[in-house]
Each structure stands twice: as C-alpha cells, then as structure tokens.
C-alpha cells in the first residue's frame, strides 16, 4: 500500500471523490491553479477542469454562501477555508443557513457540503493561523464536525464527509500535514512515512463518521483526544508510564459516546485534551457528558488539559500549547487522586 502524508491523503480523497462523482466540486482561495496554500488540491484543476476546481475571491462568506446554493442545486461542494481562523466571516452562512436548511424546509432542500479548514497550532502561526474553533461548530445543531489525526483516517473520513447528506465541518490539524507531531517541538521532525497510519489505499474507502477509535488500551485513566492531541497523548503516556487508554474521537459530533463511556467506566478516571481555549471549549462538553454518564465510576474529577483562555500567542507558542509535559503532569496527578 502506498505511504501518504496527510496532505496527500486529503488530496487523494478529493481525487477519488471527484472521479467517482461529477457533482463534487472543489474551490476556495488559491485552491485552483496553485493547488491551495497547503497544496491539498494540487493537480485537481488540471485533472478535472476549471469548472470542478477553481479559485475563489477572498470572501469566506461568499465561498460558503455559494456552496450552499450549489449543494441545494444538487452538487457536492467540498470547499476550503484557507485557515480555520478565517471562517468567522462565513459563520452566519454556516450556522444560520447550511446547518438549518434541511430543518427549515422540512427536508425539501438539503445541504450536502463539506467545509475543510486547516486548524490548530504548532507552526508559529500566531493568533490567526493557530486557532481551534471546533466548539463553535459543535454548539450548532445541524452540523457534523470531524477532526482526523492521521492520513488513513483523513482520507476515509473526508470521503465519508463528502458522501454525507448533511453539512460537515472538516478540521485538518495543520501541524500534522507533513508528519506526526507529539508536541516535542525541540526534537527532529518525523515524517509520516514511518507511521503505520500513513499506509493509505489508493482507491475508495470510507471511515464512518461518528465512530471513535481506541489508539491505546489502558486501565488507569482514559484520555479523550482528537487531531494533533492524539499524538501528544500517546507520547505523554509512554513517557509517564501511566497505563492510560487513549481514545481518538475522530468525529466530535455526532459523538461516539458509547466508546467513551465504556472506557471511563473501566478506568474510572478521565482527562480531556485539546488545543482550544479552556472555557466553553469542546472539553467542557466532554467533561459534562462523562460526569453525567460515568458519575458512579469516577474516582477523580475529569481533568481538562487545554490551551489557555487567551489569544494564541506567537513567541510563547510552547507555553501555550498543551504538550506532553503538561499532560504528563496531569496524568501523574490524576492517577494519584482518589
């Protein structure tokens, strides 16, 4: 099986989807001729023509708004917002329109739409190239929200998202594009090629939305993570020696609550991990659900290890990023609590 980076896997998902279905169209800022600033759409315009893959004006609201019209027409737009930090001008179209079209029209009009956005930090991108706005989507009824952590899932989930009948927010952890990253920013960069989940089939397959996966089984504590944080979790577990179970959520909404509850019921302890700011982050929802569903199993409060409640700073990136040191400390603390 070929080895792919996350970028290649995403490109392959788009390619496979465009080849199978003429209704799949791809556009966004710099997406057409150039192939996107992260090159996820490279070669697609050449292969499928300017009607299927093209450059858009710098108007996120226009990009999403036109895509909604296209989806209502019957196309399957898979659009790119250059950075998740730039989705705010499109937020009205996403929240008030894409998410509600089916409901409003009692199913007469639908909105099968995928909005891809690079998300998260770790690239010295400062406050407008580092954000993790997933909680701003999970609060919105009618949206599905997906965050892959590796090339294999990225491709399978993206194809599933494109084939889904409803609007899907597809958040791509940009720090993972070219290699796995466990938060050890001062160690040499590793390539995907050496990671088992970079083995990606060339053709069509899907990874179902709404299903989490256990990346590491363990007994002492459950770590709930997604995107880059899955790698941070695995690193911290290895370094601390704490026998943690690491769950990669993959889809935040609909959430695979069953897998979570089964794990926490077993371990009795839970740490929620994300890059986004703490307050009202998706970790709050996870914490609330875990305490609702596993209350009598919990031996310690659910802990949240997250970014701070500040804008994402440039120079102090590694003081902000919840890396393996911070998680490691939390792991040691939580297993000692009773």
């Amino acid at each position, binding site marked *: 099986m070929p080895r792919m980076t996350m970028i290649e896997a995403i490109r392959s998902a788009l390619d496979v989807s465009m080849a199978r279905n003429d209704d799949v169209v791809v556009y966004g800022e710099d997406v057409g001729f150039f192939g996107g600033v992260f090159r996820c759409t490279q070669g697609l315009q050449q292969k499928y023509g300017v009607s299927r893959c093209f450059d858009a004006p710098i108007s996120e609201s*226009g990009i999403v708004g036109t895509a909604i019209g296209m989806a209502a*027409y019957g196309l399957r737009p898979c659009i790119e917002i250059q950075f998740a930090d730039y989705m705010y001008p499109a937020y009205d179209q996403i929240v008030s329109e894409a998410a509600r079209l089916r409901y409003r029209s009692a199913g007469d009009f639908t909105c099968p739409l995928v909005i891809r956005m690079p998300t998260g930090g770790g690239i010295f991108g400062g406050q407008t190239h580092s954000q993790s706005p997933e909680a701003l989507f999970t609060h919105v009824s009618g949206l599905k929200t997906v965050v892959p952590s590796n090339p294999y899932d990225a491709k399978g989930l993206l194809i599933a998202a494109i084939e889904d009948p409803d609007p899907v927010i597809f958040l791509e952890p940009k720090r993972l594009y070219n290699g796995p990253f466990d938060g050890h920013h001062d160690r040499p960069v590793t390539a995907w090629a050496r990671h088992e989940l970079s083995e990606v089939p060339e053709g069509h397959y899907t990874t179902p939305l709404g299903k989490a996966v256990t990346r590491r089984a363990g007994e002492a504590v459950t770590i709930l993570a997604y995107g880059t944080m899955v790698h941070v979790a695995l690193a911290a577990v290895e370094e601390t020696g704490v026998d943690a179970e690491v769950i990669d959520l993959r889809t935040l909404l609909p959430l695979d609550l069953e897998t979570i509850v089964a794990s926490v019921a077993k371990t009795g302890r839970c740490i929620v991990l994300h890059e986004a700011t703490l307050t009202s982050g998706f970790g709050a929802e996870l914490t609330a659900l875990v305490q609702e569903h596993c209350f009598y199993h919990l031996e310690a409060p659910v802990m949240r290890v997250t970014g701070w409640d500040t804008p994402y700073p440039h120079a102090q990136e590694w003081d902000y990023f919840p890396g393996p040191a911070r998680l490691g400390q939390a792991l040691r603390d939580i297993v000692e609590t009773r």
Partner: protein
Amino acid sequence: MTSPTPLHFHVPEPASRPGGKPDFSGVSIPKAGSVRRPPVDVPPEEIRDLAYSIIRVLNHEGRAIGPWVPDLAQDELVAGLRHMMTLRTFDARMQMAQRQGKTSFYMQHTGEEAVSCAFRIALGPDDMNFPTYRQAGLLIAHDYPLVDMMCQIYSNEHDPLKGRQLPVMYSSKKHGFFSISGNLATQFVQAVGWAMASAIKRDNRIAAAWIGDGSTAESDFHAALVFASTYKAPVVLNVVNNQWAISTFQGIARGGSGTFAARGLGIPALRVDGNDYLATYAVAKWAIERARLNLGPTLIEYVTYRAGAHSTSDDPSAYRPKHESEEWPLGDPVIRLKQHLIAAGAWSEERHKQTEAEVHATVIAAQKEAEAFGTLHSGGKPSARDIFEDVYAELPPHLRRQRQQIGV
C-alpha cells in the same frame, strides 16, 4: 491646508417625518417610454446611465408606450391583475387572522404586488427564486396552493414546514421558491451559487436573487455581486427598493449615489418602476434572457413603496407621515394595471368588481380549509416529534436520547 473648522457628523434624514407633509420631490421620475432598450448582449459599460434612470412603460393615462412595452397578451395581463388582487386579499385576510390571534406574525406586500407577480411570469418553470419574506407573489403567480401558504402561516398539522418556521417563511422546491431565512441577505449569495451550479452542470436553469433596499447594506449582498460578476453567473439580482427598512429610510443604506442599481463590479444594472406591471415584466424578461444566454448577471432595482407596516409588529406612523403612501408618485400597481386594461378596452369597472368578489371568495374558501387543519393555538398541531426530525438526514444518538426525554 488643514481646515480650521472642526468636522461635523452627518446623518441622513428622510424628507419628512410624522406631522410633516409627505415629500417625494427628491425622487426624479422619467416619463414613461423615455428610456432606451439596449439589446441583451450590450456591453455593460455602455448602459451605466440606466442605473440612474427609471424604466417605465405605463403612462398617466394607462397607455403602454416606448421600447420596453412587453409582449404580453391581454389575457396574460388579466391573469397578472388577478394575481396581484389575490395577493392583496390574501394579505388582508392573514393580517386580520394575526390580529385575531390565529397566528403569531404576518408580513404584507401592499403596494409592491407587481414586482414578484410580474417577475414570476417572466421566469421559466425550472428556475429558482431565492426570495425574502415579501415575495409571496412568486408563489401566487405560480399557482402554489393558497391553502398550503395558510397552513404554513397557521403552523397547523398540514403546515408543509411542520410548524418549524415563522409565518410567511415558505419553502417549495417544486415551485422554484427557496426556503426563506430570517437572516437578511444570506439568500442573495446562495442564489449566485445555485446559478453557478447550473452553469457547472451545463444545464439551462437560472436563479433569481431577492433583497430589500435596507438589506443591501449586508455583507452577503457584496459577496453575491463579487461572485456573480467574477463567474458571470446566470442570475438575476433583484433589489426591491420599497423606500423603507422597518423604520429606516432608504437613504441610510443607499449611500451617496441615489440608486441601488449603480453598485459597480461591471454588472449591468437596470432601474425600473416597480409599480408598473408591464415595465417590471419587461425588465425581468430582459435580464432573464441575458442570464439564459450565458451573458451573466443583471442587477435590477425595482422602485416601489411599502404602503403597509413592515410587519404585524410594526407601526409606521411613528416614523413617517401618516398619508405618505398616498403621495407616492408611482401610484398603486393594482390600480395602474386595471386602468391600463380598461384603457385598452380589455377590462371594466364591473369586471374588476366581479373579480374582486371572486378573489375574495377563493381566499376565504382557502382560509376555511386551512383553519380546519388548525391555527397556531387551537386545533391540529405539528407533533413535538417534528422538533427532532430533519436536523440531520438520520436521527443521531444524542437527538434520539433527547426525543426520548420528552417521550414522543
């Protein structure tokens, strides 16, 4: 160089306010028949002046004159008149139903009936409108059942939208009427996307985008213009300038240019007398043909007047002179078309009265039928189950749990 005098802040004000005399002297109105009619493939830069004029067909005596006289047979005009009369009667009945507590809210079209009724006739059956809340004429002129409209307004058990939407927020794919959003202007750019899709698929369907004068200030209006202009999308961009946005006069949205049609980006723009059924139809037809021939978008400003209140929650006497609507220089669209037909020998006061009675009977019969299915607070209701359906194509686990909680 630096002025010694301090700056001062400028806030535009309408010509008159409650207590004052209505004053439309600022609205300059060209003679009917006086504006030229270019071919549909005219280069946009050659018709920039049309964005500052007003295309009119019906003159004071009700005669249709000039190059924009449309190719409409008299029975088509009679049908158009009936559509407008139906809409007006529908409005009156539903306004009253709201006052009687049968629904929570209603919005009238009074004075603007020609715009949506005439446009719908110019459009093809497979085209799609992306309307605001003030274009029910698009449904009525396309024979969407009045009963269905009323059931939506009553949120009753036959409401096609299952009680979920505010009254008048209709939706019907089959009738080329896109789901109305409560959020202004969002649909304007969606229309452009729909039109782009038609071109991408190499179909021949076109889209019509709708927006009010006040809402052109919204961001999505700009996005729509940018995308329509860039991709030459087959879309007609309709701006209904009815002079008011709730209590805010059009000068607050219009900016200094005195026209909504001159918004640049190289999109050809026409301005039309929106109370003149014939002119409205003719201009719509021109723009629709342009789009159909892949010549790209057209922006149309319909100059009209919101004679009624903004909605049942509004009282315009607080912000404009009481009898302003009577002074509106472009008259009433129903009366003007009626007079044209009479002048043309195709209509009479008696036939008009008789039609009025027929329309009234039809609307009342529909209302009875609709009310048999319930009104907002009594009779048949949509189910609480319907709260949880259609959020997604399939009910996800968390919504199943929530639905169980209310035991439906």
